[in-house]
């Protein structure tokens, strides 16, 4: 027997009726066309952080050590490609760190020659593109600008490239792709603007970057406030990048990692440097108003106990993922089909037991 209920005698709340009406008119549920885009970062916040960081020119230049180093290591990889590049794009140029690195003397000096021209002589034209105008134009007065044919271009949205198809002979990107929301789409767009048989060479933060800060902030949040908030971005893993590049249509992939560990006197100088780099937290759904003072105070003690060096400094790991992918082109070297090898590699290497 049905239990008696008073519900039918009560006046129905208005909100319930509205829901009923909307349900009737909705019809079938359909997915909107196109892939659903996943939003992780607030691009506008990132833009403001970069603008703010670059407006303090002196601090911003001081904190450029990491970006300069990575830009240098990245442009060294251009040495492996024996070619002249007519038109190169530096995507997410920050303060044109790559342009500066290219004008430095060639690090791989040929012993038979006394001088070696900088890499910039192999590039006819470099376009440096970034969304932050202040950061992009920060070093416009420095002497390296005269040594390379450089154009700066401010992008409205780094996730939508305004370039024609098959424009560039190479695309470089140094330490900016870790703020891209839709990485698969970004990589596909880069592939689109590359000429056939042209390389894409990039470096981005990944995996275990800042794991010390991530873990100690988690512990201090947990102990002080009883929960965990996002303070360090989720980052792409090395294993993911190969798949993503392949999905975007790149061929002959090379992905490798490189750790740079920087020692800081305390956690505050680490966070101040990150801010001056324009690399503060920009995750959607982060807490407004920064980290609480109690948590900061707790974090200092935990970081030092958990990760501190013996000499009293605090290490911070930056894990760089370097990737090279080539756009497909005619007459491009291709890997041989599986099983076509004629020689057993064991015969060449001696074939001993692996110890």
């Amino acid at each position, binding site marked *: 027997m049905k239990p008696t209920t008073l519900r039918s005698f009560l006046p129905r709340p208005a909100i319930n009726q509205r829901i009923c009406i909307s349900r009737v008119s909705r019809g079938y549920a359909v997915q909107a066309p196109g892939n659903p885009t996943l939003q992780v970062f607030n691009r506008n916040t990132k833009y403001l952080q970069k603008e703010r960081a670059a407006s303090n020119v002196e601090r911003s230049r001081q904190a450029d050590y990491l970006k300069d180093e990575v830009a240098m290591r990245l442009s060294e990889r251009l040495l492996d490609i024996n070619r002249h590049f007519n038109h190169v794009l530096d995507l997410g140029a920050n303060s044109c760190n790559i342009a500066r690195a290219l004008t430095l003397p060639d690090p791989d000096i040929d012993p038979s020659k006394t001088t070696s021209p900088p890499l910039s002589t192999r590039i006819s034209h470099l376009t440096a593109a970034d969304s932050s105008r202040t950061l992009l134009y920060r070093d416009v007065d420095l002497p390296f600008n005269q040594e390379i044919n450089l154009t700066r271009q401010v992008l409205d949205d780094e996730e939508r490239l305004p370039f024609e198809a098959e424009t560039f002979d190479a695309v470089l990107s140094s330490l900016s792709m870790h703020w891209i929301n839709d990485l698969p789409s970004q990589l596909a767009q880069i592939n689109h603007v590359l000429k056939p048989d042209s390389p894409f060479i990039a470096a981005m933060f990944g995996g275990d970057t800042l794991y010390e800060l991530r873990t100690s902030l988690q*512990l*201090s949040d*947990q*102990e*002080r*406030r*009883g929960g965990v908030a996002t303070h360090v971005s989720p980052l792409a893993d090395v294993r993911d990048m190969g798949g993503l590049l392949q999905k975007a249509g790149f061929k002959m992939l090379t992905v490798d990692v490189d750790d740079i560990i920087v020692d800081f006197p*305390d956690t*505050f*100088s680490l*966070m*101040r440097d990150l801010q001056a780099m324009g690399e503060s937290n920009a995750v959607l759904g982060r807490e407004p108003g920064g980290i609480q*003072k*109690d948590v*900061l*105070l*707790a974090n*200092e*003690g*935990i*970081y*030092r*106990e*958990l990760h501190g060096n013996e000499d009293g400094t605090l290490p911070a790991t930056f894990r760089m993922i370097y990737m090279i992918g080539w756009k497909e082109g005619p007459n491009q070297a291709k890997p041989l089909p599986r099983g076509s090898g004629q020689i057993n590699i064991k015969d060449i290497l001696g074939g001993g037991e692996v110890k």
Partner: protein
Amino acid sequence: MPTRISPIEKFAKAAAKCSVESSAYGKCIVVDYNSVHKDKCLTEFLRLKNCYLAAAKKP
């Protein structure tokens, strides 16, 4: 003209004066960091915070 010290610099300076308390608090957390819960090391933290507040007050 005195140079302007940013709030975080002031904070860092005061916090640096409490390294003993800070280390005691850190040790308390790290000793078993798989089971951290709210106010697990409250006494150590309050000691640290009192030290910080005293250090921040001094000019």
